[in-house]
């Protein structure tokens, strides 16, 4: 009995693979719009988060103040923020009953972008801080010799370390596009409006349609791998040119 059920489950994997390929090759409309929304939400979130997190990380790397080590430890710790907790906090903020309710963005992609940006800010900031602090060791004397201001140093280092920092940004993007807890709570998984790949997978799983859920999962993984591949190719081409 047990063995039969095990085999029945395992058959779902080749079945899902076939389903995934079918969905991809037929460019299924629903799949495209869900995948597109995933990309858009996580894309905007990572851009917004990076624009704030990279300068912040650079500032923290160069700043010296009492309690700095505590701030660094806190930031590093927040890399492990559970997405569902972030979702809950943002939900309470954006709810009509909450302080920012008047914005009316709960249950829309905008709320999802906010939640994901908050979620990945610590990742990008903490990694940026480490990268810039390491680089500062190498660049400090020369930059001080030039009389560069703190702000000029930050910008020079951020630009110089752009290849390493791009890996941090990609890490943030990966985390965002793969999470389901935050977008489920603040987005509501509304069909055609806030349904993204991960919430769609959760939905199909809860409906018991495991082959479809697995197929969507494979599509998501493929998307993320392709994006990382593209980023890697761009990076190595640029590095070859700039050293």
């Amino acid at each position, binding site marked *: 009995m047990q063995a039969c059920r095990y085999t029945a489950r395992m058959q779902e994997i080749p079945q899902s693979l076939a389903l995934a390929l079918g969905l991809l090759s037929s460019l299924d409309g629903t799949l495209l719009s869900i995948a597109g929304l995933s990309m858009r939400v996580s894309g905007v979130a990572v851009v917004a988060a990076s624009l704030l997190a990279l300068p912040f990380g650079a500032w923290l790397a160069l700043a010296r103040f009492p309690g700095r080590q505590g701030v660094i430890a806190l930031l590093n710790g927040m890399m492990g923020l559970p997405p569902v907790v972030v979702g809950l906090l943002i939900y309470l903020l954006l709810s009509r009953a909450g302080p920012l309710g008047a914005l009316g963005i709960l249950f829309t992609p905008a709320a999802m972008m906010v939640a994901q940006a908050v979620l990945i800010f610590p990742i990008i900031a903490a990694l940026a801080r480490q990268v810039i602090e390491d680089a500062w060791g190498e660049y400090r004397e020369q930059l001080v*010799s030039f009389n560069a201001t703190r702000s000029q140093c930050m910008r020079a280092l951020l630009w110089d*370390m752009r290849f390493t920092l791009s890996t941090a940004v990609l890490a943030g993007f990966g985390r965002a596009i793969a999470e389901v807890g935050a977008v489920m709570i603040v987005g509501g998984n509304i069909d055609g409006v806030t349904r993204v790949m991960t919430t769609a997978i959760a939905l199909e799983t809860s409906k018991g349609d495991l082959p479809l859920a697995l197929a969507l999962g494979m599509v998501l993984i493929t998307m993320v791998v392709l994006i990382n591949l593209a980023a890697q190719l761009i990076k190595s081409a640029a590095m070859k040119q700039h050293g």
Partner: protein
Amino acid sequence: MAEAIIPPRVLPLTAEHLGFRAGNVTVLSDVSLVIAPGSRNIVLGPNGAGKSVLMRLLHGLLTPTRGTLRWSSADGLAVRRAQAMVFQRPVMLRRSVRENVEFALQVAGHADVRRAAEAALDRVGLVQLADRAARLCSGGEQQRIALARAWALQPEVLFLDEPTASLDPAATRAIEETIAAIHAQGTTIVMTTHDLGQARRLADRVLFLHRGRLVEDTPAKVFFQLPHSLEASAFIRGELLW
């Protein structure tokens, strides 16, 4: 661009009884000297004598634990702007050669960054490399870029910390020629080296350091022909000092 002599505003620099401790180790003790405008000062000594630390103290990268440093101007900004430093390992930004020079000029608030950078590269003979990635250049080229960068700032005093230590003789010669040219334009040179031959070639004045102490401070001719101290004599003879 007009080859101007640089009027001394922040020099002479007077150091009195400088001392520096790192942890429990005394790296420098009781070093007193005066850097006069227009001179070529070579700080000579074996490795570990404290030359690099002295450079950094004079340039303001380190704070002395003892003693004082006095510039001739009370204007702190002018004092900082009048100096430049070239390090043993050149720090190149991850951008083109030209942009490296332009960066230094931008930070200094220079009016015509593009032209000044172009002129500096021209003087050092690196114009053909201007758009190459600086980090992909050879060690000798990078050091010349660092010199061009420092020179573009038209400093009153240029500090150099063993600039040719890791270079081959051809590159070393190119660097030394550039340093001579910079000096000819009116910049005061303060340079460290452990290479006796280099000191002979470049010095007006030799400051000999041994174990953190300024053992001798004499004009170059005197130093090489009639050194006062035993350590200096031994060093010139080629002995190992420890």
